[in-house]
Structure formats: structure tokens, C-alpha cells
């Protein structure tokens, strides 16, 4: 009798418990997610993670965040030690450090039922695809554009330069109308390298770095011109000399006094980072986006169009499904999109842009930048090795020698042609 009761109880209870389990949710999962950022980003992402947990009660996400300094070192040890978080923020050029064969991170192409890859342009996805595997998703796409201090230009009674010629002509005008201490543009060495690169790429229509052959897509004459452009910028008073810049101390561009008070009136800046430059200007001054200068024969704008940062899933994660769900939430869900807003530039996800547009949140410099990029010839995809630490230092060192008068333009051009390919030979491993 008692056995009959218990069997009946059992048969009745089984479906009930299954249903209950489904209602309560699956087994609890704990995810780890890492990122770098400033206070604003930490706050926004932490709030987003709490919302994700509310949506999926069985998943808990632990945020492991730091500032920018040291993040790569930390991630490198974690990846080498196989203790990396499930979901991590990865800089675009780190993909070649950790996943040359595309196996360093999860192939998101296999998780399409969890992540909506359709929200991203093929172009954007291509920048995150290693050896045919989608290793990461871009948070936002960015490019270097010309931003000027509109207030200073107004004081000089000049319009923002619309071409290379007008940019070069603005230098002497600034000196004549405002004084020796005023410059239409300020470049730190990496900015200067990027600008000279744009000059070369506009004519060649090829990425500067030929990753396959580990050399530069530039002739000796091109590289001579590369050095000459920098020299001309300084000679025609477009940018301050390296000596003058150094006299203000080794501080970030946006924290330099001449930038704050408007004497250095321009920057060649990432669209995702221009906010910091606008923030520090003293009261009453405005940053404005200028038309992008193109050479008459330009085949491409030479924009350095790339992801500002990406999110990738650990190749060894025990929870690929949940991680992918979180990734999708961060990039495509209204809660996450509205919490982050334009803090990291205009999102790369079409859905996210739609959500922000609907609320009238896409405006100002971010909108203008996106429209400008869309209107420019933009086909060249630079190799991530362009931003490899050693390659970057190689370029910077040569321009620095030139800037301090240790070598002349001809020598700088020659060294670019010899030193950089030598560095590429060592850095690009196949």
C-alpha cells in the first residue's frame, strides 16, 4: 500500500519538479568578465551587469576591471596561465598577439544562436576575423579625424581647413594673426605617424603595412615624402616643434596648457576618444569636426578605420553559451546600450545605434564623425601590426630623430625603408 502511494506520488511529482526546475532556471553559472576603462565606464558596465543578472537569474557575472595601465600585462599572464575571464575586452591589435590562428578566442560564428552577428557590418566583422574565425565583436568602430578648436579659428578669422593646402596655409596665418605661440594643429608622435601614413595611403590606396611580405607598401620616394610631410608641418608653423611641446612637460595632450587655453587649436584624434579633448578646454571654447583633407588623386582617405575596442570570449570558457548571451546583451540590448550611451563612441551594432537614435541620443560630434566616415572613400584596412608596440616605436623613433634635427628628411626616409621592414620581419610571426 505504502509502495503504491509512493509510486503515485513519484509519478505525479516528477513532471511537477521538472516544470519547477524550468521555472526557477538552470543550474547557477558564474561568469567572469574583464575590462579596462575610467570611472564612467566602470559605473555603466557594472549597472549593465546587474541588469543582465536580473534578466537571467541563474547567471552571476563578476566584473574584474582595471585602468588602462597594465591591462595588457595582466591579460597576457592570464591567457598564458589559462586563467583568463570568460568574457574580456580586448584591444583590436591584441588579436594578433593572442590569436594569430584564430583559435585564441571562441569562434563567434559557431554561437550565432546566442549572439546576433547580423547587427554588425561585414566590414567591422572582418576586422575581428582571424583566419576565418570571428574572434571578437567591435564595441564601436573608430577612425582618426581632424578636430579643431573652433573658437581659436574664429579668433584668427579663418574657416576650418577643408584640404591639405588649407591646412598647410593655416600655419603662417596663425603666426601672423595670433602670434608665434599659436598653432592650428598639435600632434604627438603617434598622431604624426598616422597623419603621414594617411598622406601616403591616399595616393597608394594600399595598407601601409604589407603583412604577408613583412614589408611596407611604399617606395623609397613615398617614404621620403612621409618624412617630408612631417618636416613641412613643422616648417610651415602648422604644428609646434617637438622642443616646444616638450617644454610643457610629459603630460597628455588634452592636459597641456596650450591645448586647454586654445593656443594649440587642433588634434588628429580617434572619434572614440575626442571627448576627453573637448572636456578639458577652458570655458567658452568649442571643438568642431573639420572636413577630411583629401589629395586630388586620393583613392582612399587613409582613415585607420578600426574597432575602438572589442569583446572576445575565452576559447577555454566552461560556459560559451552564457558568455555569448552576455556578449549579445552588452552590445545589442536596450538596457546595456542606454547605460553606455556614447561613452565609447557610436556603437558598432546597428540595433544599438537604432535604440540611441530613437531616443535622440545620437547627436553632436559622434554623429558628425559617423556621417563623415560614411561619406569618405574608406576601403583600405590597415594591418593590426601597424599598432604593434615595436612597429609603433620604430616609426616614432625615426620621426623623433627628425624632429630634434638629429637626422634630415632624406636620412629619415631611408631609415623608414630599412628599420621598419626589419622590425616587421621580427614582429610578424607566421
Amino acid at each position: 500500500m505504502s509502495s503504491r502511494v509512493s509510486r503515485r506520488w513519484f509519478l505525479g511529482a516528477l513532471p511537477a519538479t521538472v516544470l519547477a526546475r524550468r521555472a526557477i532556471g538552470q543550474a547557477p553559472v558564474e561568469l567572469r568578465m574583464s575590462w579596462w576603462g575610467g570611472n564612467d565606464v566602470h559605473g555603466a558596465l557594472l549597472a549593465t551587469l546587474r541588469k543582465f543578472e536580473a534578466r537571467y537569474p541563474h547567471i552571476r557575472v563578476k566584473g574584474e576591471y582595471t585602468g588602462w595601465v597594465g591591462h595588457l600585462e595582466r591579460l597576457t599572464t592570464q591567457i598564458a596561465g589559462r586563467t583568463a575571464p570568460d568574457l574580456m575586452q580586448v584591444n583590436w591589435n591584441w588579436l594578433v598577439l593572442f590569436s594569430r590562428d584564430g583559435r585564441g578566442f571562441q569562434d563567434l560564428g559557431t554561437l550565432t544562436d546566442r549572439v546576433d552577428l547580423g547587427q554588425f557590418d561585414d566590414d567591422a566583422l572582418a576586422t575581428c576575423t582571424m583566419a576565418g574565425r570571428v574572434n571578437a565583436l567591435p564595441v564601436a568602430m573608430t577612425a582618426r579625424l581632424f578636430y579643431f578648436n573652433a573658437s581659436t579659428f574664429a579668433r584668427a578669422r579663418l574657416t576650418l581647413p577643408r584640404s591639405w593646402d588649407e591646412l598647410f596655409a593655416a600655419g603662417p596665418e596663425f603666426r601672423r594673426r595670433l602670434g608665434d605661440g599659436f598653432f592650428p594643429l598639435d600632434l604627438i608622435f603617434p598622431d604624426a605617424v598616422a597623419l603621414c601614413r594617411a598622406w601616403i595611403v591616399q595616393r597608394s590606396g594600399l595598407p601601409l603595412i604589407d603583412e604577408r611580405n613583412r614589408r611596407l607598401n611604399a617606395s623609397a620616394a613615398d617614404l621620403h615624402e612621409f618624412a617630408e610631410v612631417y618636416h613641412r608641418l613643422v616648417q610651415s608653423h602648422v604644428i609646434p616643434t617637438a622642443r616646444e611641446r616638450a617644454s610643457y612637460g610629459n603630460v597628455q595632450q588634452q592636459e597641456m596648457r596650450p591645448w586647454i587655453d586654445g593656443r594649440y587649436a587642433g588634434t588628429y584624434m580617434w572619434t572614440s576618444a575626442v571627448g576627453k579633448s573637448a572636456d578639458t578646454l577652458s570655458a567658452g571654447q568649442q571643438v568642431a569636426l573639420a572636413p577630411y583633407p583629401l589629395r586630388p588623386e586620393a583613392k582612399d582617405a587613409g582613415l585607420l578605420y578600426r574597432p575602438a575596442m572589442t569583446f572576445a570570449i575565452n576559447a577555454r570558457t566552461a560556459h560559451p553559451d552564457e558568455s555569448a548571451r552576455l556578449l549579445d546583451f552588452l552590445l545589442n540590448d536596450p538596457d546595456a546600450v542606454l547605460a553606455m550611451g556614447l561613452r565609447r563612441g557610436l556603437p558598432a551594432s546597428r540595433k544599438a545605434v537604432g535604440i540611441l537614435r530613437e531616443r535622440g541620443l545620437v547627436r553632436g560630434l559622434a554623429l558628425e564623425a559617423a556621417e563623415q566616415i560614411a561619406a569618405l572613400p574608406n576601403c583600405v584596412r590597415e594591418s593590426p601590426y601597424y599598432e604593434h608596440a615595436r612597429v609603433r616605436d620604430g616609426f616614432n623613433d625615426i620621426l623623433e630623430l627628425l624632429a630634434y634635427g638629429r637626422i634630415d628628411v632624406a636620412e629619415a626616409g631611408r631609415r623608414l625603408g630599412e628599420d621598419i621592414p626589419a622590425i616587421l620581419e621580427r614582429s610578424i610571426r607566421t
Partner: protein
Amino acid sequence: MSGTRAPLRYLILIGAGFVMLYPLLWMLGGAFKPNAEIFQSIGLFPAHPTLEGFTRGWRTGTEFSFATYLANTFRIVIPKVILTVVSSVLVAYGFTRFNVRGSRVLFALLIATVLLPKSVLLIPQYLMFREFGWLDTFLPLYVPSAFATDGFFVFMLVQFLRSVPPEMEEAAVMDGCNSFQVLVHVVLPVILPAVISVALFQFMWTMNDFLGPLIYVSSVEHYPAALALKLSIDVTESTAWNEILAMSTIALLPSVLVFFLAQKYFVEGATAGSVKG
């Protein structure tokens, strides 16, 4: 003659001292400035003094207040200083007072570790601590100190001990002390200034250590102050320097306090062995 020169000398010294201290004083002044004022004025005194840097900085942009991070710092510093002092004294005593075969080679090896760049050991040590299951705890940060791994301190103590005449220790042995008692009752009081220098150096270096916690501690709730101070510095966002300066000021207080308390011994210890007495 010297009476007339003394004021001039003091004037020069005070002037030079002021120049050296200026960055520190500026940090203090900056902590009370609004963020926008920091880049625009080089002056010490804030034009619009505010406590915002302290209140917002203390709250931090994270889930935890700065108190958590300061407490974490001490949870690392205190065991590390104690372990370093005990292990370094024992090892230095061994090297100077006992004739063990191969001790010269071992000492050379110890000095070699001082010259070894720390970054070389980073990944192997990380893997080792991972196997121990010590990641995301404070153990990797202080347990190695229990084995006199800071060769520099052992070297410093060895130099000091070499200048101490062994006669007193011999007398203590005659009176029936074993070698450990000799160390505690006779040697330690003599080398106390050097021991305090070791403790102070380790205290300051550990307070400021960034890379160790960065690598081994992954949970934000375990971050020490050195890591927390850089949490808000990003490349794409403008930084609230007044908060960072305010919290740096607070994080500096323990070091300054300890230094002043131990100053007398510290100066004696740091110059020890320079003139053999």
C-alpha cells in the same frame, strides 16, 4: 664668520628643500582644487577650495569605498614586512656566522637574483601559484618573503653584520647561549637600525607595488590602494585628477607617519657599513 654664513646656508637649504617638496605640496593643494583648475594653475593654493576630491574619491567609481582598498594594502604589507624581516635576518646571520660548505656560491646566487629582472619570473611564478591554487588571494604577494627572496635585504644585513665584531657573541656562547639565543639576545639589538631599515624599505615598496597585485589579484574587492588609484585612469576618458590626488594624499599618510616614527633608526641603518667602525 661662520655666524654670518649660517643664515645664507639655511636659506639655500630651505630653498632647495622647497623645490624638492614642491610636487608633494602641489599634490596636497591639487587635492583641494576642482578638476578644471588643476591643469590651469601651477600655484599651490586652490582658488576655489573644495572637498569634492576627497568625498568622491573616497566613494570611488567602483562598488567599494577607498577604505576597502586601504585595508587590503595593509593585509599585504603587514605580513610581508614581518616575514621579510624574520627571514632576511636569519639568512644573513647564517651567511656571516656559519661556515657552511658552498656558502660563497650560494651567496653569489642570492646576489644574482637581485640582478634578475622581475618580469622574467612573471609567467613561471604565475603558473606555479596557479598550481598552488593561490591566485586571487594575497598569498603570492607575501609568502615568498618568508624565504628571504629579497636578496637586497639579505645583502644589506650581511654587510652590516660583517662590521659587527664577533667577540660579544663569543662571550655569550661561553655563557651558554645557543646560536639562536645569540642571535636574539646579542646580535639583534646591535643590528636593530639595519633591521628597521629593511622593514621600512619593504613597507614603502610594498605600499607602492603595482605589478604584483595587478597580476595575482583579479577580484576588485581584493585590490590594494596602489591598484585602486589607477582604476579610473583610461586613455579615452578624461580623468578626475583631483580625486586621484586626494586619495594619493591619504594613501601616502601611513608611509609618511611610519617614516617619521622610525627616522632616527632609518638614517643610521641606511648608512651602515659605509664607514667601518
